[in-house]
């Protein structure tokens, strides 16, 4: 089973988490930053994600042309992603490449160059990414739903940013944002794999120890006012298929209601696990879930999916439904809201709780199947939810009661707390 995590903090504030896993001759390195799209001000939406792209384009000691294949030529792979609370970079390769991976991350933290031509070229790449997303009506509806459900909190704008900001942001905007947020005391470095923890920690200190800290970081703290009435958004665009989404303001990851909400989602749409990097690549066990039975088995929907994600501040519990061809959205909405109302009123049964617990426990096991996934979870919960939440999850899942789940259902699934999004396809 999982080995102990070695935790340390360097003098410059960099948190370091190392876990030895000797099952394959590999090492995975993740460098996490406490910056995401919720830290962006109007006019700069999308800057976190764009900065992530720029941080793959050459540093003071890694020329632009050396980036291509920098770790691939040794059989490794790298990637990165940005979301509402966090930005992260990952490298997985043979354990012999650990020094090289740490060197790359240290360079990325402190010495990226932000060449003006590269910034311009990346502008169109990111706009292309945005437009590719718009091709998908489901994604478009998701964006509109979130923007409607939040009126004050910066979770309201999409991580990719609004188009006009992407068109006008400058190189100095990007570089200034990078310099402000990419400092050791705003980061957590995670290493998992076939390494010696003591040796690895020394290597980290050697590569990152000389990077100056950035001083105290205070994140923007706008609290979303409590929603006091149902909100709706309807998209009418050319298309072939109707989509429905309902979003409810939901507890943040460290809140005592978070695990009961996870269990509630498992009862409604099947357990997904809590690993954003891997959980959603495997379909959830949902054929005995309530909403699957009420919508898909009755032929009203071709798919239903629930997302109760671990976030630093209260985000949304969102249920997404694809209507079957020829079924009106009104019928789907009536059936969906009817089921949600039923669980709000009556809660769940003991059998449902037991099944949801078993499913979530199994998902935690399945999600620990690679060093990359294990490392993701260590870093994710460290920057998003506090390091104590993740190790306690098995216990929190098992100790949750039917009453706990009923309580969050009663509190969260109210009419006043919901936003309904509809995509009504128009014939061409």
């Amino acid at each position, binding site marked *: 089973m999982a080995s102990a995590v070695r935790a340390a903090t360097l003098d410059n504030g960099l948190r370091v988490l190392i876990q030895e896993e000797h*099952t394959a*001759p*590999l090492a995975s390195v993740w460098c996490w930053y406490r910056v995401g799209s919720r830290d962006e001000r109007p006019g700069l939406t999308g800057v976190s994600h764009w900065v992530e792209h720029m941080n793959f384009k050459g540093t003071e*000691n*890694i020329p632009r042309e050396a980036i*291509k*294949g*920098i770790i*691939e*030529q*040794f*059989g*490794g*792979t790298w990637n990165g992603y940005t979301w509402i609370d966090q930005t992260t970079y990952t490298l*997985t*390769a*043979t354990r*012999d*490449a650990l*020094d*090289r991976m740490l*060197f790359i991350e240290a360079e990325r933290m402190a010495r990226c160059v932000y060449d003006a031509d590269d910034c311009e*070229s990346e502008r*169109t*790449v*990111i*706009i*292309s990414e945005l*437009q*590719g997303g*718009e*091709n*998908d*009506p489901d994604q478009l509806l998701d964006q509109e739903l979130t923007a409607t459900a939040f009126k004050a909190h910066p979770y309201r704008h999409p991580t990719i940013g609004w188009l006009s900001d992407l068109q006008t942001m400058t190189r100095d905007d990007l570089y200034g944002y990078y310099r402000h947020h990419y400092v050791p005391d705003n980061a957590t470095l995670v290493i998992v794999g076939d390494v010696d923890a003591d040796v690895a920690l020394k290597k980290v200190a050697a590569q990152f120890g000389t990077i100056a800290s950035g001083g105290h970081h205070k994140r923007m703290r706008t609290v979303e006012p409590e929603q006091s009435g149902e909100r709706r958004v309807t998209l009418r665009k050319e298309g*072939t*298929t109707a989509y429905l989404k309902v979003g409810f303001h939901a507890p943040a990851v460290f809140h005592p209601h978070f695990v009961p909400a996870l269990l509630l989602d498992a009862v409604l749409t*099947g*357990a997904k696990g809590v690993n954003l990097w891997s959980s959603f690549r*495997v*379909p959830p*066990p*949902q*054929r*005995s*879930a309530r909403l699957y039975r009420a919508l*898909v088995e009755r*032929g009203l929907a*071709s*798919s239903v999916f629930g997302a109760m994600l671990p976030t630093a501040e209260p985000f949304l519990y969102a249920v997404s439904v694809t*209507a079957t*061809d020829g079924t009106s959205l009104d019928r789907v909405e009536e059936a969906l809201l009817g089921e949600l109302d039923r669980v709000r009123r009556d809660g769940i049964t003991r059998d449902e709780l037991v*099944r949801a617990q078993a499913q*979530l426990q*199994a998902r935690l*096991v399945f999600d*620990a*199947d*690679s060093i990359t996934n294990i490392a993701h979870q260590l870093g994710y919960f460290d920057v998003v939810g506090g390091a104590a939440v993740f190790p306690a999850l098995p216990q929190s899942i098992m100790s949750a009661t039917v009453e706990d789940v009923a309580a969050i259902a009663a509190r969260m699934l109210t009419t006043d707390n919901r936003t309904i999004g509809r995509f009504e*396809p128009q014939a*061409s």
Partner: protein
Amino acid sequence: MSPQLSDFVVVPGRPTGLKPSRLVLDNGVVVLAKESRKTPAVTLQLTMKAGSVNDPADALGAAYLLGKTMDRGTSQRSATEIAEGLEDRGASLSISVTRHLVTLSCTCLTEDFDRVLALLAEIVATPTFPESELAIQKGEVVTQIRQDADSPAVRAAEGLMALLYGAAHPYGRPSKGTVDSIEALPREVVDTLHRAHFSPGSLMVAIVGDVGAEQAMASAAAALGQWAKPLPAAVELPPVVAASSRRQVVLPMMNKSQADIAYGFTTMTRRDPDYYAFWLMNVVLGNYAMGGRLGENIRERQGMAYYASSTFDPNMLEGPFVVRAGVSGANVERTVRAIDDELRQLSAHGITDQELMESRQYMIGSMPRALETNAGIAQFLITCELFALGIDYDTRLFDLLEAVTREHVRELAVRYLDPDRATVVIAGPYEG
């Protein structure tokens, strides 16, 4: 002096080998097992050689519908009982259907292994395809087909396959079928398809995870050893004819934000001796370090696309090589020109020594990552079995790739990737 990148060089070693176990049961089922005690879980993959190439010409999508319905009732259990049997223990079953294969994949906790294997065996051997379940699945499939019709990416990819292979060829037909074919498809066709093509001799089973190989074999024999059925006759597939001239089709979807380009050729079978050189060429051209040369040109240098890459998918027949890119309508022509240029460049000059070395190291070095998870190993074992690559294929790969030369790669580029014979499909906000 501060450290430099050149201070951190790595020398990848030779793989030590998975050393899986292989057993053929008396009835022909091939069982592949690999123990891995990393987590208390087991991944099961049951793959039947019975994919959509077997669809009757007047019932397109039959195999796809079969895949969606086969776990909705067996001789002994209802759809609900099957679902609860798996889901009460946190397992979920996925069934996928490709041109040649129907695959059941499931990961379960170790303690549930025997029960889950027995259930999957029952689903494979005795599905009942209840009429009511079929009706629900048809509704889902029709909805998926309509969603696909609204997706530039899917329309470009499917449009390319239809052009490359011909709309009537099993590789060119839509594997989900059409709205009309699915709505009209009688239950008997699905049932007949199962009776005709599902047999022990067509089944490969991979068992990977927290179970010893000997126990895995015994469990497989207990679950599947009694299933008796003759091997179906091999299906004759029409030959693949390579294009002799350039073709381009535009599918305007003016309501969309971005156009998808699919640009391709038919190539070779997986068993072709040229496979390794072609695979390496594909890595250089469209995979290595975010899209290879194509990504470097279209994304990095010209900033036109979020994605630009290529795939090489050789199969039982000559599979496709496809370049894909998503760009704004205004950049379609420039992107197609960039693809043409890269292919001409490759034919004229081949790849460099550095590209050969780095790609080879990448491909060999990627193996430990691909084989890190139970699901990765299971997929690998099935692929080795399907194409008769040998149980020690992972250790031989090193030498197979070492043998690839620059000359061989260039010769393949000349032979297969001539822009004057390319087939191009563009779907999105572009009218040509």
